[in-house]
C-alpha cells in the first residue's frame, strides 16, 4: 500500500498492465517523453521504450482509428484524449467503428481499446477544458463507460478496463487528480494523502466494471453520483444533516441497477447529481431507470442537480458547477416533498 494521487494511481495501473501484457501500448498527444499534461504517463516511456509509449499527431480521429486497427491486430491500446472536450473528432471512430466492430464481424474482429480522457470542470478551464460528455457514450451500444472518483478505484477500474475485450471509455475527473474536491473552491486544497481511498496497492488488482459503491449509507434519500460529484454530495449531506445514502456509480454502462434499486426501495427518495448539462445528460437515463424500477416506492419526485444548459463559462465557474449549496437545496426539497 502506498498513498497515491489519482493521476499516480492511473499511471500505476498502466504500468502494472504494461508489465503483465506485452500487447499493451500507450499513445496520445504529449504522453510520451513529457508524460502527459496531467502527468498520467510520466516515466512510462523511459521504462518501456518509445515503441510502446509514444506521442501522437494532434488528430483525435487518427488516434482512435489507429487504435482500432491495432486492436484488430491483437494489441491492447490505451490511448489518451488530452481533454474530453477534444474527443469529438474521434467520435466517428468510436461510434461507427470501435463500438460496432465485434457485432458487425460476428466477433471475427474486436476493438479492445481503453480511451482515457480527463473530464469535468473546476480548474478554470472554460468551455473547452471542462466538459463532461459521458452521456453521449452511454447512448452508444458496444461501448463501456467508466468514471472513477478516487485513486483506489481509478487503478482497479483502469486495470479492469484494459483487460476488458470491449472498448472502454475511461473518464477521469481532472479536478480529482490531486485530491478529493467537494465544491468548496475557496477552502484549501485537500490532498489524497490521508484519504482512505488514497491508499493504493502497488501491484495488480481489479475493481470490476459494472458495480457501484455505496460511499455513505443512509436512510433519508438516495443520491446517485459519480466522479467529483460524490464529494459534493457528501458535503451536502454533512451540511444539511440529511441522512443521504450516496451511491458512487463508478461504471455508467453497464449500470449497477441492483444497487440503485435496493437503495431507492429503502429510502423512497432520489437525487441525481452530475456536472454535465442537464438535458439528455446521464441523469435523464438514471431518472427514467429509477422510476421504472422503483415507481411504487417513490415518495417524492426524483430531482436532478446538474450543470446548467449552457456552455461551461470561465469566470462564473462556481455559479455553473453544481456545488454543495445547490445539491443541499435539492435534498431539502426532496425530503420536504
Amino acid at each position, binding site marked *: 500500500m502506498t498513498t497515491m494521487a489519482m493521476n499516480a494511481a492511473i499511471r500505476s495501473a498502466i504500468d502494472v498492465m504494461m508489465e503483465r501484457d506485452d500487447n499493451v*501500448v500507450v499513445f496520445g498527444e504529449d504522453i510520451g517523453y513529457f508524460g502527459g499534461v496531467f502527468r498520467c504517463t510520466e516515466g512510462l516511456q523511459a521504462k518501456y521504450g518509445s*515503441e*510502446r509509449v509514444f506521442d*501522437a*499527431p494532434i*488528430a483525435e*480521429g*487518427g488516434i482512435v*482509428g*489507429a*487504435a*482500432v*486497427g*491495432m*486492436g*484488430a*491486430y*491483437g*494489441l491492447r491500446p490505451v490511448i489518451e484524449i488530452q481533454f474530453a472536450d477534444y474527443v469529438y*473528432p474521434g467520435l*466517428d*471512430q468510436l461510434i*461507427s*467503428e470501435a463500438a460496432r*466492430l*465485434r*457485432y*458487425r*464481424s*460476428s*466477433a*471475427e*474482429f*474486436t476493438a479492445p481499446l481503453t480511451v482515457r480522457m480527463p473530464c469535468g470542470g473546476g480548474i478554470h478551464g472554460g468551455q473547452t477544458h471542462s466538459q463532461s460528455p459521458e452521456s453521449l457514450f452511454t447512448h452508444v*451500444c*458496444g461501448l*463501456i463507460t467508466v468514471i472513477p472518483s478516487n485513486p483506489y478505484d481509478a487503478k482497479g477500474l483502469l486495470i479492469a478496463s484494459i483487460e*476488458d*475485450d*470491449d472498448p472502454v471509455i475511461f473518464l477521469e475527473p481532472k479536478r480529482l487528480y490531486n485530491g478529493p474536491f467537494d465544491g468548496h473552491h475557496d477552502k484549501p486544497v485537500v490532498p489524497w494523502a490521508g484519504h482512505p481511498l488514497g491508499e493504493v496497492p502497488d501491484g495488480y488488482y481489479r475493481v470490476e466494471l*459494472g458495480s457501484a459503491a455505496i460511499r455513505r449509507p443512509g436512510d433519508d434519500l438516495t443520491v446517485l453520483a459519480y466522479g467529483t460529484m460524490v464529494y459534493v454530495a457528501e458535503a451536502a449531506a454533512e451540511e444539511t444533516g440529511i441522512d443521504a445514502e450516496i451511491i458512487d456509480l463508478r461504471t455508467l*454502462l*453497464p*449500470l449497477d*441497477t441492483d444497487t440503485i434499486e435496493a437503495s431507492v426501495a429503502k429510502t423512497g427518495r432520489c437525487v441525481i447529481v452530475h456536472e454535465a448539462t442537464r438535458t439528455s445528460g446521464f441523469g435523464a437515463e438514471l431518472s427514467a431507470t429509477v422510476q421504472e424500477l422503483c415507481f411504487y416506492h417513490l415518495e417524492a419526485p426524483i430531482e436532478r442537480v446538474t450543470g446548467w444548459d449552457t456552455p461551461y463559462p470561465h469566470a462564473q465557474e462556481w455559479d455553473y458547477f453544481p456545488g454543495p449549496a445547490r445539491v443541499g437545496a435539492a435534498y431539502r426539497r426532496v425530503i420536504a416533498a
Partner: protein
Amino acid sequence: MIEGVPLRFRIPEPPARPGERADFSYIVVPPAGSARRPEIETDPSEMRDLAYSLIRVLDDDGSATGPWIPELEPDALYHGLRAMVMTRTYDDRMLMAQRQGKTSFYMRCTGEEAIAVGHALELDRDDMFFPTYRNQGWLIARRWPLVEMMCQVFSNEKDRLHGRQMPIMYSAREVGFFSISGNLGTQFIQAVGWAMASAIKGDTRIASGMVGEGTTAEADFHNALTFATTYQAPVILNIVNNQWAISTFQGIAGGNQSTFAARAIGHGIPALRVDGNDYLAVIAATRWAAQRARANLGPTVIEWLTYRAAAHSTSDDPSRYRPADEWKSWPLGDPIERLKNHLIARGDWSEEQHRDLVADVDREVLAAARDAESYGTLLDGRVASAKSIFEDVYKDMPPHLQRQRRQMEDER
C-alpha cells in the same frame, strides 16, 4: 494591386451530362511502358513525378512492355483472369437476385475487377486488407467460398454475420479481408494502425487499405497519411479513382486540380499512379509497394485509374447524371478483355478457351447460388434468429441486454 474585382464562385462540372457526348479528354493516356520504375530504396523526394505519370504495362495490342513488366507464371495470369471473370459473373448473378427480392441491396464492381483481384493475388496470405464495398474480387481471387459470400448477401441462416450487416459487407479473416464498414474512409487509418501494430511487434505482415477517390475527402484519409508517414508504417494506401462517387464526379473531390496520387507528396510518401484496368500493372505496382513495406521503407500510396462501369448500387440510376454510354468511351478499356488479349497474344489462350472459361464460371456461380439459396434468402425470411441480435454487442452480454432479450421474447 488588383482590387475591387468581384470574386467568382466556381464549381467543377463533369465534362458530360446525360444527353451529351462522353468526353474523357481530361484523361491523359501515355504509352504503355513509358513510366520509369525506380528502385524501392529511392528517396520519396526523387520520385514525385510518378504521382503524375501513369504506369501501364499492357499496350493496345495486348503485349507487355516497359520496366514494370512483372515476372509471373502463366498459371498466375490464368488464375487472375478466371477470378476477374468470376467476379463479374458473380456480380451479375447477385444483381439478378436483388431484382428478384432475394436480397435488399447489391453493389457491382464492373470494370474495376483487376484491382482487387491483382492486389489479392500479389499480397501474402497473412497480410491484412482493409477493403471497400467494391472489393469482392479479393474474396473470389482468394477462393473464399462463393456460397459463403452469397449467404451473406442473402442474409440467410448460413450467413456468418447473422444477418446483422447489409449485403456485401463481408468479413473474412481467414483470407485477410477485414470487416467492411458502411462508413467511408474509416478503415484507411485502421489499416495504418494495424500496420503500426505489426511493426511494434516486429512481425513481417503488412497491411493494405483501399478507398474510392470520393472518399479521399474524408478526415480519415488525412489521418491515414499523417500516421503512415510519421511512424513510417508498413502499409499500402490505395485510392481507386473510378471517376464517380455516386452522382458526383472526381472534380468535386478536388481531382481537377491535381491527381489523387499527389496527395501523398505533401506527406513525403511515394505515390504511384497506375492504370487500374491493366492487370499486369496492378501486379507490378502492388509488388513494388509491398516490397517497400516489407523492407522497412515505409508506406506507399497508389492511385488506380479506372471507371465505375455499372451503377453505384442497386439504389442508383447513373443515367440521371452521366451519359448512359460513357463507359464505352473510357480510354483504358475493360480489364478482362485486356488480360484476355494479352494471354492470347502470348499464345497462352484462345477465344475458345475463354468461352469455355466463361461457361464454366457461369455454371459454378449458378450452382453456388442454388446452394446458397437452399439456406434461405431475405425473401423467404429464413434468416438468423431475432434474439441473436443481442449477441456480440459485447463479449459477455450485460444484464440490460439480457433483460431486453427476455422482453423481446415475452412480447412475441
